[in-house]
């Protein structure tokens, strides 16, 4: 079964009341007691889902993730004059000048991360995501976000993936899937990619921009490259040299800007690069302002946007967060389900 077929297979059957209502409307028409096209019930403008699992403790999350960062922070510290010392000797200590500077620091930081899984080992990545609940048609900076936690174990030979999903829309059970062949989801495939940014762009162009998905202009090409590289970073499975190459390739994409003083989903400071897409959304890549390790991806509305569709109007207000997704630093373990 491929992803298209699986996409259908997963759709649950209609709820019994929906089936009965459809039948009732049809019979009413058959009896001639109602107009054939009955008026549709008014849709709730603001979806307020009644889901069992709600906001998980974000505080606990902050503690967990902060613990992982402490060591790196202690390495840096301040010198005798109280000036911040560089975390790693190769990364400059001064303020970040621009997007390319930040991405180069992130690349250098990635390269210094030790990482050498054996083919029979598993790469563990914990990802935490927050987004407006399904059915939300108006998003504002105050819109409540639902939590979703995904723990993924990628077998280093690329042959299996195991995962658990918790929070809104997840049940916490461990599932093992064989072979996800998408190049972004496969450690050996990512390890085999060119590490020169120009060559990497060329590789993506020849493997992704194919058969009519070729970008029509410079903007489409830039947006597509940015999306492709963001996805590699988001999955977290890339080997350090590939992660570094991806940062350096993003640095060459037009329209990528620096965003300082960003706060990640745990409320900790972050620094980001950003690219505006569709005229109203900024897609941001957040890194740690001290260690330059990858932190999160964020999609935020930068301009009020209204979409009128037949099922109603959906509104995104400036400042609304449409997705926040962070992952832990990948760790090597021996078994799926094992936590480092």
């Amino acid at each position, binding site marked *: 079964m*491929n*992803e*298209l*077929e*699986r*996409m*259908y297979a*997963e*759709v*649950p*059957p*209609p*709820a019994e009341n*929906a*089936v009965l*209502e*459809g*039948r009732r*409307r*049809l019979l009413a*028409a*058959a*009896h001639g007691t109602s107009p*054939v*096209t009955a008026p*549709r*019930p008014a*849709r709730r403008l603001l*979806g307020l*889902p*009644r*889901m*069992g*699992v709600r906001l998980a403790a974000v505080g606990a999350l902050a503690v967990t993730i902060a613990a992982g960062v402490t060591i790196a922070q202690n390495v840096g510290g301040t010198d005798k004059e109280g000036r911040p010392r560089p975390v790693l000797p190769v990364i400059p200590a001064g303020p970040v000048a621009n997007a390319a500077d930040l991405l180069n620091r992130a690349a250098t930081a990635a390269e210094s991360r030790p990482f050498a899984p054996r083919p029979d080992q598993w790469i563990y990545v914990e990802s935490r995501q927050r*987004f407006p609940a*399904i*059915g939300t048609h108006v998003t504002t900076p105050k819109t409540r976000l639902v939590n979703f936690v995904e723990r993924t174990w990628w077998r280093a030979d690329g042959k299996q993936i195991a995962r658990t999903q918790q929070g809104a*829309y*997840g*049940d916490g*059970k461990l599932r093992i*899937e064989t072979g*996800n*062949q*998408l190049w*972004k*989801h496969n450690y050996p495939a990512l390890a085999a990619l060119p590490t020169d940014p120009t060559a990497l762009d060329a590789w993506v162009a020849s493997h*992704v921009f*194919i*058969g*009519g*998905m070729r970008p029509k202009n410079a903007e489409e090409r830039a947006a597509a490259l940015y999306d492709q590289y963001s996805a590699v970073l988001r999955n977290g499975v890339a080997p350090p040299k590939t992660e570094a190459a991806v940062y350096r390739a993003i640095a060459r994409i037009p329209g990528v800007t620096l965003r300082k003083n960003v706060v990640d989903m745990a409320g900790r400071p972050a620094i980001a690069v950003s690219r505006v897409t569709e005229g109203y959304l900024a897609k941001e890549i957040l890194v740690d302002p001290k260690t330059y390790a990858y932190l999160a991806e964020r*999609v935020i509305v930068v301009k009020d946007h209204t979409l*009128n*569709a*037949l*099922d109603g109007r*959906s509104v995104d207000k400036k400042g609304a967060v*449409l*997705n926040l997704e962070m992952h832990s630093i990948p760790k090597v373990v021996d078994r799926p389900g094992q936590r480092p």
Partner: protein
Amino acid sequence: MTGEVRAGTDAAVIDASLRDPERFAELYDRHHATIHRYIARRLGRDQADDLMAETFLIAFAQRERYDLTCAGARPWLYGIATNLIGQHHRAENRFWRLIARTGADPAVESPSERVAERVSAQGMRRELAAALARLPRGQRDVLLLTAAGGLSADEIASALGIAKGTVHSRLNRARRKTRDALGGIDPRDVGEGVHA
């Protein structure tokens, strides 16, 4: 005419409903789940409840025009549903972009009902949704009707009111464009019925 319609077929039910309108409910009982799944896949489950009902109301109103030589009514119903989805193309584009952005899938999950599991690798679903959002509507219609299963190329052609050759060319283009999102595999195994 009635004598030529084979007993028990969808055509026979539609024929009977011309005299006895309530008989049309049999067609609903046979096909509502398929039609619901198809609409839910393209617009989410909540939209699907309403549009499933509307598909059958439209079919009922047009039943006199049904070609009774077509024994199975599924292509006809798919065609009506596809037209309804077409009227909601903005909502559909928003739907695919939402999946691409977050991995949350309103076809599987619903705001009014908590579904316990998000089954598949969300990464792949996101890639595919991003590719589908970029497909022209005609190609998307053919690809998603093919993947829905159970329809031959002839039936898809009749559902959409296009030539069979157009079905093939649109499908080939759509497949090329979604190849990377499907894992770089040539998705020739998608809906082999079309080649039959």
